[in-house]
């Protein structure tokens, strides 16, 4: 799993490439913890390169979403592949997350 972090104003954008599974979930959780720990409640996850997500990955996303929302922030998801979107649909997670077609739309939603 490759993670690429960048900033746009007060928004942190984290790009994910590869498989988010039982092996990589801890690494992603650690990374998200460190970002959220700095007090940045505005996060966009660019999932364009995400090829697979397991139940461990879904659980990490959900627990981090709860953490960030406690700080009045949010995690927005962008650029999901159809397969990833399908997994989110089946899991009932599309009702929990704000999901956008692209990174710009996700970024704008924080200011809009």
């Amino acid at each position, binding site marked *: 799993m490759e993670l690429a972090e960048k900033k746009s104003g007060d928004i942190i954008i984290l790009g994910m490439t590869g498989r988010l599974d039982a092996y990589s979930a801890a690494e992603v959780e650690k990374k998200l913890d460190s970002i959220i720990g700095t007090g940045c409640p505005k996060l966009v996850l660019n999932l364009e390169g995400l090829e697979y997500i*397991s*139940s461990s990955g*879904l*659980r990490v996303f*959900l*627990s981090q979403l*709860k953490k960030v929302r406690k700080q009045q922030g949010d995690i927005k998801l962008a650029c999901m592949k159809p397969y990833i979107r399908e*997994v989110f649909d*089946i*899991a*009932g*997670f599309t*009702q*929990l997350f704000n999901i956008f077609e692209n990174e710009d739309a996700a970024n704008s939603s924080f200011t809009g």
Partner: protein
Amino acid sequence: MIMPTYRAQYRRKLTSPDQAVSGIKSGSTLVHGLAAAEPPALLQAIADRLRAGELTNLSVHSLLPMDNVAKTLLSPDLADCVRAFSWFVSKSSRSAVRVGLNYYVPNHFHQVPRLMRENLDIDVAITTVSPMDRAGFFSFGTANDYTSTVARCCKRLIVEVNKNMPRVFGDAHLHISEVDAVVEHTTPLIEFKWPGPSAEDGAIGKLVAELVPDGATLQLGFGGLPNVIAMKLMGRKDLGIHTEVFGPAMVELIRKGAVTGRRKNLHPMKNVFTVAEGTREMYRFMNNNPSMESYPVSYTNNPDVIASNDNMVSINSIIQVDLLGQCNAESLDGHEYSGTGGQLDYVRGAYNSRGGKSILAFYSTARKGQVSRVVSRLDSGAVITTPRMDVHYLATEHGAVNLKGKSTRERALDIISLADPRFRDSLLRDAENMYLL
């Protein structure tokens, strides 16, 4: 009039749902009552604690989870703090099982009480019961199954008393002295309704009904088709009931006089079941009715117990059968769709009964006639629920066949005769290519 000592115990244990679940610790293992016995107030109180962040890493064991659990402990927003297990997959858990947020536990239903007792360290059990009687007993009502076992091997038992839960007989009672906390919450029980019969239902029902003699003891599986078959048995005499699931069609058989239970060897005159799933009217019929006896599933579904009644006829449904006679009743498109449940328990028990029959009934096609349920080979990833050695009768709208004692050639030909005529030529070709003919 409730005996004063039991009334005092009841009052001492009576509390609010929030208070009753306040002692549940993170990391606990919880088992809840099945289907209509899901206790909504307790489930809501636990979900409130999970949502408030007071409780996490809760292991939840369900069998056929229904709405009350789906809306609370199995809600997607709690997937990070609940480890969910389904011992039989339902509409409420199917999606989560498919993406690994809920784990199916393979089992034969009659072994579930033992499996839970020996393999789970159960911290909390919660279930709905009927109101306490004058001798201090609640009734497990619609859900005896594994609940009665779990109630006695958990560390803390909390019951939700619902006046709509029927009081039934048999080995179905729980004493106030066995209970740690009581909450009262009267609400309508979950109801199970099936769509009306289709044209295929009528044909299958007629064929299967012809296999059921007067005096037979019946087990009917869960779902629409077994209920339709029951409706075709209204003209029979002295039928009996020894079943896993008691359903509305059985009430009709009793009311119309087709079921008397007079010729049963075991529990004559009694309707024996372990789970009841039906309508409000059915629950009323069951309440305080001495003919309604429920027992743990380790008893009702024990193949040796099932075989104790002569002329035992079990009727269940399947999803697919291949040309070898292997039956899949639980997986669809490579995913766990339902579960083994008690199918094999009754297939084996009924065949071992003197004069008994096990019948697996199914529609010959699916997806509006586009897909044959009779297939050359089971789908990739499909599960064999009933092995070919155990299959006795198979029935579709095109006929009924008995596979016992038949060669692979005879079986293949019999099974192909059950397929929709549009698929038979290709199935015959496949059978030849498999050197079955």
